[in-house]
């Protein structure tokens, strides 16, 4: 376990450097000019040139990259070119927002999806399973912005039950905050439920049809006992990896939802800083997201290892 962790953790910096270089290279391809973006189209060409020098944009790309990387590693994340606020504040603030939304969606997702998957798996090839599977497949295939738009119009514009913007007012109570986040979280839950439920269903079917479940039934346990004692754990443990994938998606795949519900998340920040060629913000955002992704993946693996004694204690323990 420790070796596994060390090996995985050691791979992270390498991958991060590769990614940051990739992101930087791509940034160079983006048309436009951050100095012009700061000063506007009517500023004089000389003012723009002066600002370019002031920002250090006249230095070679490699120099800027190395400087940024050095700064990032040593914790000096610098200021955003365009917004002139510390990148750290900006990134952490947006990250917090994204995490909040992602976690809410995740918290809603897990019980719903796992329950549906279990029900489908236990009743596999029966009507309940078919309904759950086809519905999950359909919802999972419908882009979140389609469901989002429909939710928005029904609950926000027509019924006015929930706000159209997910942005939480600064003095909002937890209930109000939840109100703001509910629609975007729901559209994500609808998207992801099918996928997770499908995995849970598959492992449930495996568990239900396993020799140990059959043996337990043959020993005279009721089906409910078999499900509770043997199926539940064996069905949900493998689903942790599916949940990890979803959490990863939730942390980074929210651009459409952020846009639709006007949520100041990190996806939008990433994109905006890419358009503005706001290098410090873009690179730092990419890095922070990257680290987060890797930790989530690693976390899912670790959880899986902890939950499954076969992996935890090593299969070759004979």
């Amino acid at each position, binding site marked *: 376990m420790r070796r596994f962790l060390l090996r995985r953790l050691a791979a992270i910096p390498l991958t991060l450097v590769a990614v940051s270089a990739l992101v930087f290279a791509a940034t160079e391809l983006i048309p436009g000019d951050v100095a012009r973006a700061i000063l506007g189209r009517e500023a004089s060409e000389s003012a723009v040139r002066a600002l370019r020098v002031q920002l250090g944009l006249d230095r070679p790309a490699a120099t800027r990259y190395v400087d940024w990387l050095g700064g990032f590693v040593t914790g000096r994340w610098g200021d955003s070119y365009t917004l002139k606020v510390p990148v750290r504040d900006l990134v952490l603030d947006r990250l917090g927002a994204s995490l909040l939304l992602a976690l809410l969606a995740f918290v809603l997702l897990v019980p719903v999806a796992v329950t549906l998957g279990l029900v489908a798996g236990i009743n596999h090839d029966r009507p309940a399973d078919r309904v759950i599977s086809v519905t999950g497949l359909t919802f999972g295939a419908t882009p979140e912005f389609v469901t989002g738009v429909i939710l928005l119009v029904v609950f926000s514009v027509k019924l006015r039950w929930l706000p159209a913007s997910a942005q939480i007012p600064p003095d909002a109570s937890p209930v109000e905050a939840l109100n703001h986040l509910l629609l975007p979280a729901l559209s994500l839950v609808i998207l992801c439920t099918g996928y997770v439920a499908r995995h849970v269903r598959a492992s449930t079917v495996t568990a239900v049809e396993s020799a140990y479940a059959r043996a337990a039934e043959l*020993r005279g346990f009721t089906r409910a006992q078999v499900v509770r004692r043997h199926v539940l754990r064996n069905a949900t443990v493998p689903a942790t990896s599916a949940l990890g994938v979803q959490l990863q998606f939730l942390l980074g795949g929210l651009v459409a939802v952020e846009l639709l519900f006007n949520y100041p998340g990190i996806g939008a920040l990433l994109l905006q800083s890419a358009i503005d060629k706001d290098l410090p913000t873009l690179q730092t955002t990419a890095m922070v997201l990257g680290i987060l992704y890797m930790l989530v993946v690693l976390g899912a693996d670790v959880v899986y290892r902890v939950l499954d004694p076969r992996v935890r204690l090593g299969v070759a323990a004979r």
Partner: protein
Amino acid sequence: MSGERGLRVDGLTVAYETARGPVEAVSDVSFEVAAGETYGLVGESGCGKTTLGRALGRHLPRGGAITGGRVSVDGTDVLALAPAELRRWRASSLAVVHQEAGSALDPTMRIGAQLAEVLRLQGRTRREARMQVPRLLDRVRLPDPEAIARRYPHQLSGGQQQRVVIAQALAARPRLLVLDEPTTGLDATVQHEILGLIWALRAELGAAVVFISHDLALVGRLCDRVGVLYAGRLIEEGPAGEVLATPRHPYTSALLASAPQLGRTRRTHPLAAIPGRPPAPGEAGTGCAFAPRCTYADDTCRAGLPPLDMVSGRRTVRCHHAANLIDLSHDGPAARAEPTAVDGGGRLLEIQGLTRHYGGTPVVDDVDLTINRGEVLGLVGESGSGKTTLARAVAGLGPQGSGVIRLDGRELAAGVGRRDARIRRAVQMVFQNPDASLNPSHTVRTVLARARRSLRGTLAPGELAARADLDAYLLDSRTDRLSGGQKQRVAIARAFAGDPELVVCDEPVSALDVSVQAGVLRLLADQQRRTRTSYLFISHDLAVVGYLADRIAVMYRGQIVEQGPADDVLAGPHHPYTASLVEASLAPLGKADAYAVGDVTAKDAVGCRFAARCPLRVDGLCENEDPPLITLANDHTVRCHLDATGLPEATALEGET
């Protein structure tokens, strides 16, 4: 009725739903097992024995249904029970032990919890259950029950897992114990122990025991009575000893003839395979299901289903010709004894100091081995002994390590990639798993043609196939459509595509049914006789090795502990480990285990590897000092601290004259 004790099965019929409609897997089967009696159900795969076993517990897979008949246990009509009653009956009266115990244990629960759960179902309190777990484990002779109870299933060996499952079965004090191939896949010595345990427990339990197996010999050793299943029907039934000694049904007889036995070799007793294959459920016509494969079949057989006739006091046979076929002794004539080992061939392969590691552990540890030209060297040992790694090293596969392999005196590179074309041509291999050994996307013709091209062979695919007794029509089938036996024949044909000097056979028949295995063994023997190719033949089955090998090497935990002419090795005096193997396949059950497998943990690599299990161990010596290699006679060496006189000998090998 209610006074009746034991299992009574009447006209039991089980059908499965398939795309083509319902298909009977078990047809009209009736038998009785008295309490305390052990009844063996024997048949090849697909004959319906597992379905029958499951039907006894009314526990069929999806799509299966009991469509007729009756099952009663101690007077309880099992099929008439309401669901809740059925559950109670299962909890109180039924115990089932399946093949592959590992999968019957919940991988995420500790052993103790799984046992306690069963005890709780019997109405024990939590405390009682916890108290009783170690006793239960002790009853199945697991050492250190407290420690075992804290472990997870994957931390136990296969034999230990099977014991736990048996312990679970015992918790219920069952009236009916169904054992479905409980020892398949276990090593011979472990198997011997488990069977011994069952033997011991059956008397203690006083339950009706149904023992399902494909292994006639095994059934003969364990069971009081035996029923032979073919195509879902009982075709012969009677006391185990009688049925095995004097089979009255041609199928039973053929089955016995196809099983290798210790002491019978390819030269003295060539195996007879049963031609064709058993019908799949629903395939059998109106007549006798065995008729298409039966040498005695006539129009009567093909026309109508034979009745189950009582042929003598306690035996029934389902054959139209039962009355005529009294003597079906399966012992073929002790064939013309060919000259044994081919002399003058000289040494083909020499292995010196070969060592191979996986991870940090040596799997093959300083092995010396020699194979002569035209000779079959049998390599035997339990799983994990390193025999496959050794074989693969000879072929140039697997991890690299130290040691020298010479072919014709020329040293071989360790990796196949660095061996030249001539060497590659000279050393070929037949693999264990028939499903993986052929490219499933290729046709037989492609497989053989590619082999011929790269090995620069001379024979066309058609001829290669013909030599492997493969029908020509199979040439253009994709290999994934072939049966296991056919696949191995193709694999053998492929290995012989380029006139090899040495063919490494890694458990080539272990995945095959008995009747099929006989055919493949025979093919291997024929090829060898024709081409004078040397074999390195690996098997965990002493009988199979004994059948084919001229010389035998015995491997234990990475070391060759004994090596010599086949007869000498089997008969002894031999290494205590060899003795345990011989005993496992011959000795009667119930005798106290001389060679307890126990909980052997890999200790440091000093001393005799077998010391912990050896009944002849010299305390203070064996576990501390590496044993010397002693030469008994005639190229027969043993690695043991005992001298020649102290080594054990086999108690009379059957067929040995």
